[in-house]
C-alpha cells in the first residue's frame, strides 16, 4: 500500500515495533531450524564404530524441551512487546 502520508523514516518507537514484527515472523523459522538439528545426530541403526555412539534419549529429551521452552518464552516476550497499535500500523504497510 502506497500512502503518501507515511513518512520515509518512522519514529523510534514504530521502528522498534517493525523490528519486533520481523522477529515474530522469523521465530518459527528459527524453531524449525533448531528442531531439525536431530537430523544430524547419529542413529542407532547407522552407528558402526564404537567411538561414535548414538545420542541418548535423555539428552535428546533435554535438547528438545529446552528448545521448546525457549520458543515459548520468546513468543511470550514478543506478544507482550508487540502491542495492539503495532497491528494497526502493520495493516497499513503490509
Amino acid at each position, binding site marked *: 500500500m502506497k500512502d503518501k502520508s507515511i513518512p520515509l523514516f518512522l519514529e523510534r518507537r514504530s521502528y522498534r515495533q517493525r523490528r519486533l514484527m520481523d522477529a515474530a515472523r522469523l*521465530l518459527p523459522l528459527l524453531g524449525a531450524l533448531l528442531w531439525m538439528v536431530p537430523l544430524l545426530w547419529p542413529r542407532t541403526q547407522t552407528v558402526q564404530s564404537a567411538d561414535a555412539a548414538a545420542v541418548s534419549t535423555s539428552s535428546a*529429551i533435554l535438547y528438545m524441551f529446552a528448545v521448546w521452552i525457549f520458543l515459548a518464552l520468546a513468543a511470550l516476550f514478543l506478544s507482550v512487546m508487540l502491542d495492539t497499535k503495532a497491528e494497526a500500523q502493520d*495493516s497499513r504497510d503490509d
Partner: protein
Amino acid sequence: MATLNILIAVCLGYVAMLFAVAFMAERAALRGRGNWLRSPWIYTLSLSIYCTAWTFYGAVGYAARSGLEFLTIYLGPTLIMVGWWWALRKMVRIGRTQRITSVADLISSRYGKSGVLAVCVTLLAVVGITPYISLQLQSVTLSFSSFAVSDAEGAELIATYDTALWVAVGLALFTILFGTRNLDANERHHGVVMAIAVEAVVKLFALIAVGVFVVWGLAGGVGPMMERIDASQIGQWQVDGGRWVGLTLLSAAAFLTLPRMFQVLVVENEDEGHLRTAAWAFPTYLMLMSLFVVPIAVIGLELMPPGSNPDQFVLTVPLSQGRDGLAMLSFLGGFSSATSMVIVAAIALATMVSNHIVMPIFLRLTQGGASGPSDVRHVVILARRMSIGVVLALGYLYYKVSGGGTALAAIGLVSFAGLAQLLPAMIGGIFWRGATRNGALAGLLVGFAIWAWSLLLPQFGGGALSPGVMEQGPWGIAWLRPEAMFGIEGVDPLLHAALWSLSLNALVFVVVSLISFPSPLERLQGAQFVNIFEHSSNPQSWSGGIAQSEDLMIMAQRILGPAEAQSFFQTEAARQGLAGYLPEPTPDFLARLERELSGAVGGATAHAMVAQIMGAATVSVEDLLAVADETAQMMEYSSQLEAKSSELTRTARQLRAANEKLTQLSVQKDAFLSQISHELRTPMTSIRAFSEILRDADGLQSKDLTRYASIIHAEAIRLTRLLDDLLDLSVLENGQVSLNIREGLLSDVISHSIAATGTDMHALRVRRVGPASEVMLNTDLDRLAQVFINLIANAQKYCDADRPELTIEVNRRGGRIIVDFIDNGSGIPPESQSMVFEKFYRVADRQAGGAGLGLAICREIMARLGGTLGYLPGQGGGAFRVSLPAAQRMAAR
C-alpha cells in the same frame, strides 16, 4: 480394585458436571455476564482439543514403539502457533470479517463462494475425520477393557454391551444438546467451549499426575529416571530423518486444516488479541502434555508383562501399582480427551454438512425456501442434529469395519494426511491472488484420490484391497501399487502417501490456477482474502429501492429467530435514522444482513437467499462488470473509429503517391513519344529527301540512282527494324508475349547465337569458358538466343580494343545459371552504367547502330523468362551478366 460400575458412575458424574458447566456458561453468556468466558485463557485451553485421546493414550504407545518420534505431532502445531504472525493472524482476521463458519466455508468463499468446492471440502473432511472419530471410540473402549481385566463381572459386561456404540450415542446426545442449542449468527458455542476448557485442564492434570507418580513415585526422581530412560529399549536416538521432517510438516498442516481446529481457532475466536496469548501459552500446554510421555512409556515397558498394549500404559501402570484413584483420574483424562475432540469435530462437520450440502439441496427443492412456508431455522437445526448423528455413526462403522486393531497413532496419521490435502488450496487462497477455483478443485481431487488409494483403503486390511492389488497394482499396473506408486518402493507408507498426494496436489493446484481464468466474484474475493489487512468491507454490493425490506425480515426471522432478527432490523433502521423495524435496503444494510445470515447458513447460501429476495433490483458484480463491458465496448468503438481515420489518412497518402507516379508516367510517355517521333523522323527525312531528288532531278547517272535508291532502301529497313523493336518491346512490357518453352542445351543456344551474329566475318574473337555450359535448359530458347545475339552484337559494335575478344563464361551458382559476356574493350563509363537499359539510350559519341532499344528489350525478355540481365562492373571491359533459373536436371556429361 475399582469395579466397572464405579467407573461408569464416575463417568456419568463427570459428564453431568460437564453439562452443568456448559449450561452455566450458556446462561452467563446469554445474560451478558460472560466476560470471563471471553478471556484468552479459555481460548488457549479450547485449542487443546488438538490433544485428543491419541495424545493421551497414543503418545505413550507411540513413544514405547518408536522413541521420540511422537514429538513431531506437537512440533508442527508449536511452530504454527509461534509463527501466528504469518498465517493464523490472517486466517482469524478473514474468518471474523467474512463470517466464515468452517474450513469448507473459508475455501468456498475464497474461490468465489463456490458451492461445488464447499461440497468437495465437506466430503473430504467427513471422510478424513471419520477414522479419527473411530480412533476416539476405540481408545475409550480400550480403556474400559483395561479396567475390566481386573474385574470378571466387568469383563462380562464389556462382552455383552458394545462400549463403543454406547460412547458414540452418549457423545452424539451431548453434542446435539450443546452444539445445536442455538443458531447463533456468530456460530459460537460458549457452553461447549467452556466444557472443553474444563476438559483441557482435566486431561493435563491427569497426565501430569501420572507422570509425577511415575518419575518420583516409581523411578525415584529425575536423575534415576533419566538413567532408566537411557537403559531402556528406546534409550537411543532412533528416529528416521524423513519421518521426523515429514511428520512435523504433516502435523503443522493438519493443525491448520483440521475442521475442529479451525472451529476453535477461527470460528470460536472472540478477539484477535487472544492469539497473542495463545501464541506462547499453547506451545507451553503442548510441551507439558508431552513432558512425561517418555518416562511413562519407559516405566511401562519395564513393569508391564511383554505383549501388553503400550497404548494403555497411562492406565495400566497406575493400576498395576494398586493406585486406583490415580488410574481413575487418568481414565477421566483420556475420556475428556476423547469426548472434547468428538464434540468439536462433530459440531464442525455438522456445520459444514448442513450449510454446504443439506441447505443448498433444501433451497433448491423448495424453490426459494426463504419465502416458502417451511421454517428454515428448523431445517438448519434439524440438519445439524442429523449430521452429528451421521458423523458419529460413520465413526462407529469405521471402528467396526477396520477391526479397531491398528495402533492409535497410525489411524491418527491417516486422518492428518487426508486433511492436509486442504493445505494448498487454503494457504494458496489466503496468500496468492492467482489461485483459482478450478485449481483448488483439481488439486483437492488429485490429492484426495491419491490419499484414499495409497493410505486410506489399505487401512481396511484385506477387505477393501485384495493382496493382489497391493502386490501387483490394479489390473496389473505396477506403478499404481498403493504403497509403491510410480515404482518407488521401500518408502514408509505414510510418508509415501503424504509425499505423493501433497506434492501432486500442490502441483496440480498451481498449474491449473496458472492456466485457468477466475470468475469476477472469485477475483474480488481473492483480493479481499489476500489483502485482508487493507480492506475490511464486504465485497458484495447490493442495492434496492423497492419495498423488499419486509421480505428480508421474514426470511431473517426464519433463520436468525424472530427476536434477534427484529432487533437487528430495528438497529439497522435506527442507524438509518428511521423509526420502526424496516430499514431501507441500502447496499450497506444488505451486506451486513448477508454477513449476519452467513453466520447461520454459510456464505454461499446467504448470498443466494438475499439474491432471491432482491431479485432484479440486485446489482451483482456481474452487472457491474456488464456495465464496465459496455464502457469498454464504447472505448473500443472509438478506438476503431480512430483506426479507421488513420487508415483513411494512409489511403489518401497512397493516392497522392499513385497520382505522382501517374504524372511521372505521363511525363515519361510524352518523352517517349517525342523520342519516337524523333527516331522515326530521321530515316523518314532522308527517305523523303532522296525520293524527292529521284522524282525532281533529271539526268541522274545510273550510279547515283542506284546509290540514292539503296539509301532509301536502307533507311526503310532501319525504319522497319525500329518499328519491329517498338512492337516487340510493347508486347513484352504488356506481358502479352507468348513464350515457346522448349528443352535444349545452353551450349547449343550459345553456339547458335555466335553463328547468327556472323563473328567469323568480323575481327571479334569469341572465347567460351566455364565448366557448366552443358546445361539443359527448359525455357524459350529463341528468345534467349535473341538476348545472346544482342549482347554479342553489342560487343561487335562497341568493343574498341585493337584485338577485340569476347569471353562467354558459364557458371552454376546456387539454383541459377550465370552467363557472363565480357569483352576486352573500355566498357561502359560508370555514369552510363545505370542508364544502358533505358529505352533509346545510347552511350554518347559512338556511331549509332541501333535505336537504343536492344538492351531494354533484352532486359524485358529476361524478366519474362524468370531471369535477370545486369551490367557487371570491374571486369576490365564491358561485361553483362545473364542469370537464369536452372532447369530441373543436368544433361549427361
